[in-house]
């Protein structure tokens, strides 16, 4: 189980597919507790990512992820642009010069990305944000030897569903206070799609 350039391309294609399919759903989630643009912004950003990477040749996953990061940063906007941009940029830095990404590299890379997201968003776990999906996934890697990639999908899904009962204390949703309880956080949902796609692309790798 290791990721090469084509697996990363597959990961991005699957992420884009899930985000395009769930564009309206993400926007609906954001309508409940935010400003209803998350689906629109993520769909625009990931579409641009695919356009950018699909026909380019890359010698390492890191090179491709750098393009992914810069595209997200310059096309998504809102809070999601800098957060996902930062996440993929740090992943690209963590995997620099490696042509094959092993499970241990995934673990270290995701940990570094999570730290970067926390720093950029000045947020931590339990605040009803994307971190509430990233944190359990990173923990899964650090506590287990991942032999079955579908565990990633399961963990991320459970974590996303868990954000429903949380009260938002960061980001736009925090203005809604108690009213924010009862809805899945849109950022945790888009993060779930990205980990679900990672899970699928690892299964074939």
């Amino acid at each position, binding site marked *: 189980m290791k990721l090469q350039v084509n697996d990363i391309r597959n990961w991005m294609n699957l992420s884009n597919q899930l985000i395009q399919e769930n564009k309206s759903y993400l*926007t609906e989630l954001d309508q409940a507790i935010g*400003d*209803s*643009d998350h689906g629109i912004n993520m769909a625009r950003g990931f579409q641009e990512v695919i356009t950018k990477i699909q026909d380019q040749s890359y010698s390492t996953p890191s090179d491709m992820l750098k393009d992914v990061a810069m595209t997200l940063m310059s096309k998504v906007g809102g*809070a999601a642009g800098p957060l996902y941009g930062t996440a993929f940029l740090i992943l690209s830095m963590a995997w620099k010069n490696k042509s094959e990404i092993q499970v241990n590299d995934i673990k270290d890379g995701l940990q570094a990305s999570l730290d970067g997201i926390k720093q950029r968003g000045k947020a931590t776990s339990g605040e009803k944000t994307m971190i509430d999906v990233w944190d359990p996934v990173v923990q899964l890697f650090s506590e287990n030897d991942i032999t079955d990639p579908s565990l990633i999908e399961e963990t991320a899904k459970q974590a996303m569903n868990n954000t429903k009962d949380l009260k938002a204390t*960061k980001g736009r949703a925090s*203005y809604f206070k108690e009213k924010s309880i009862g809805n899945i956080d849109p950022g945790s949902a888009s993060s779930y799609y990205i980990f679900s796609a990672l899970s699928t692309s690892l299964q074939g790798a």
Partner: protein
Amino acid sequence: MKKIINNPNDVVSDMVSGMIQAFPEKLEQIDGTMIIKRKELSSNKVGLVSGGGSGHEPAHAGYVGKGMLDAAVAGEVFTSPTPDQILAAIKAVDTGHGVLLIVKNYTGDVMNFDMASELAESEGIKVEQVIVNDDVAVEDSDFTTGRRGIAGTVFVHKIAGAMAETGATLNEVKEVAEKTITHVRSMGMALTPCTVPAAGKPSFQLEDNEMEIGIGIHGEAGIERKPITSAENIANELTQKVLDDLQLQSGDEVAVMINGLGATPEMELFILQQHVNQLLKDNNLSVFRTYVGEFMTSLEMTGCSVTLLKVDNQLKSLLEAKSEATAFRV
């Protein structure tokens, strides 16, 4: 959704082209970006850049002009512009005296402007930023990202712009902008929601007899939903909340802004205005200037916001200084 648009994905670029064509002698677009810039920059002056999501017109491009902003960056509808665009604006207006960024307090805006500042600084440009957080509807606490920035931002643009025009240093311009932020508070309400073109449906639902108090300018629902009441009651509720927070002394002087959110007739804004002024008088406050109109809108939302700025001699003279911005002429 019924709107005068072409493709929902093109509303921002279509709008920016239109704005530039309407004021060809004053404004220009930086190629390949959604940046609206003053055609002629004053040299020897601190640069001023603001921006944010589109859909708040005339904010922010309407405030570009001699005496106010040097450039405004238009993001997608209700979505912060991206760091590369903000960086391009900073570079375009820097004349070597540094650039002040005026940012409204939203997580996304703050993050994107932060990243742009970091990038600009790494290229050797002096950049400072101020964060406007005038909306008293949402509380500040250790647990939230703080209050939102709404219509009070326009006063910050005006005052910082006038200060920069005097040849003040970056620190001096930043200082007066921060003083303005300390002295300005706003509160809004809505009668109807708005529809983001790419979303195609309204951001929340309100019954015919309901109003929403404490709305944001992005179609966010407010803090309280109530039966609709008279203009007098609405004016009193909004103004009182602002007064409670601003802690003015008897005899203090204020500038007043009655802002329409995009679909409120001026008639209603003027009706509101007289009640706001009456309440201020009842509190022994004097009104320096009253601004009534659309300054920071939320697409076609019906509703208004009330902004009070406590003024002293410095702020008064900067408010009165000449401005050639297309949406704020003095």
